[in-house]
């Protein structure tokens, strides 16, 4: 099981801020999860945007990062506070 987190505007698309899922066996790298989320939520390309970053277990990773030991995966659109 992995917790998937959808931050910012992404939760408007997913209609939930987080979910726990068993990753399908064909999802082995971060880029696969982008395509999976894109198809699952029919997100009009939002999950494929390069400015939407992925963090695995609290560290931002690139698309080639393996998900074998992922307990928590976050989709992070552009950040900014203040």
């Amino acid at each position, binding site marked *: 099981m992995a917790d998937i987190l959808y931050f910012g505007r992404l939760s408007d698309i997913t209609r939930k801020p987080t979910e726990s899922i068993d990753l399908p066996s064909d999802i082995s790298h971060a880029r696969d999860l982008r395509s999976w989320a894109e198809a699952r939520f029919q997100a009009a390309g939002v999950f494929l945007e390069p400015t939407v970053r992925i963090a695995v277990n609290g560290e931002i990773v690139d698309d080639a990062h393996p998900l074998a030991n992922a307990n928590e995966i976050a989709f992070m659109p552009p*950040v900014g506070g*203040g």
Partner: protein
Amino acid sequence: MSVLINISDQPISAPELLNDFESRLSSSGGVVSFSGVVRPDGKDTRVLGLFLQSYSPMTENGVEAAVEQALNRWPLEALSVYHRTGKIRTGETIVFVATASRHRRAAFEAADFLMDYLKTEAVFWKKEITETGEVWIEPREQDYQDNQRWQKSETN
């Protein structure tokens, strides 16, 4: 060196924080503070407030790293960063940054640097709550340009 970092959903009183900040100083000749306040006017509607989302501990770790950079770059005696999360009403303070140094330039620059970090790199997501609905706000191009200034001057 006196450093305070606070990220929480508790209200921020800038006058009290500044008073407390100044009481921690002994050698500074320049004190700069910045307060960011929720504006009442949106693009074309009245803003009722903001909702700030963070991702712990990534948010805290990032702010700590930016503070570390500021301390390495400017000779500061003290530094405070307070940032709110959760629901924040119009007119309330969302962020407070204070810096103190022997001379004013370092204090001004360090505060400016930290605010640029908070605006464009700190791990927060910001939603504007208006009379007509809610909309997520992401940094403007100007915010990114402001933040770029520090990378350029670092290579000088």
